[in-house]
């Protein structure tokens, strides 16, 4: 059951990724990377259940925290007007 849901979430992610790679603006791509933050956490906790590996919950905790750092770095430091947005 948990592995099935994890597979569904991964399929979701890959679909979003392929679709976003065609988009013109970097912000769209970054939002997909942030989608990986929340969905990746979901996949990891589901895998922890399915594989009987409780240590993966720790990985999920780390991921939840560090996805925010990348997002903030993007918004505060990297996203300039010259980077081909609308």
């Amino acid at each position, binding site marked *: 059951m948990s592995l099935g*849901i994890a597979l569904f*979430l991964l399929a979701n992610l890959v679909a*979003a990724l392929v679709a976003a790679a065609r988009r013109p603006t970097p912000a769209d791509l970054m*939002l997909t990377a942030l989608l990986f933050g*929340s*969905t990746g*956490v979901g996949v990891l906790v*589901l895998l922890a259940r399915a594989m009987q590996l409780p240590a993966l919950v720790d990985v999920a905790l780390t991921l939840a925290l560090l996805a*925010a750092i990348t997002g*903030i770095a993007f918004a505060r430091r990297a996203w300039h007007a010259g980077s081909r947005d609308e």
Partner: protein
Amino acid sequence: MSEFTSNSLLVVGAFFYFAGTVGLLRFPDVYTRLHALAKADNLGLGCVLAGLALQALETDGLAAALKLLLIWPLALAASAAVSYAIAQRAAALGVRPWQKGDE
């Protein structure tokens, strides 16, 4: 009974994740996409975590279940901070919000 509840929570969580992804792909601009990312996905994560915590409560004890639930406020705080940072930056760069009737 408890197994049924936790499995339903997992399915509901998967549904919200799916809706969030669809919203991310269909919504017209950065601001509206942030809505999809910040709300639907976090609710999906919350449901999945609640479902797994119910299962962990039976097999691994209270602390393991609470640890799973602890991820949720962390993810919420992170996503609130990130969506504010991105929205603010977009506004500062002059990205105009999409309006009804725009292409």
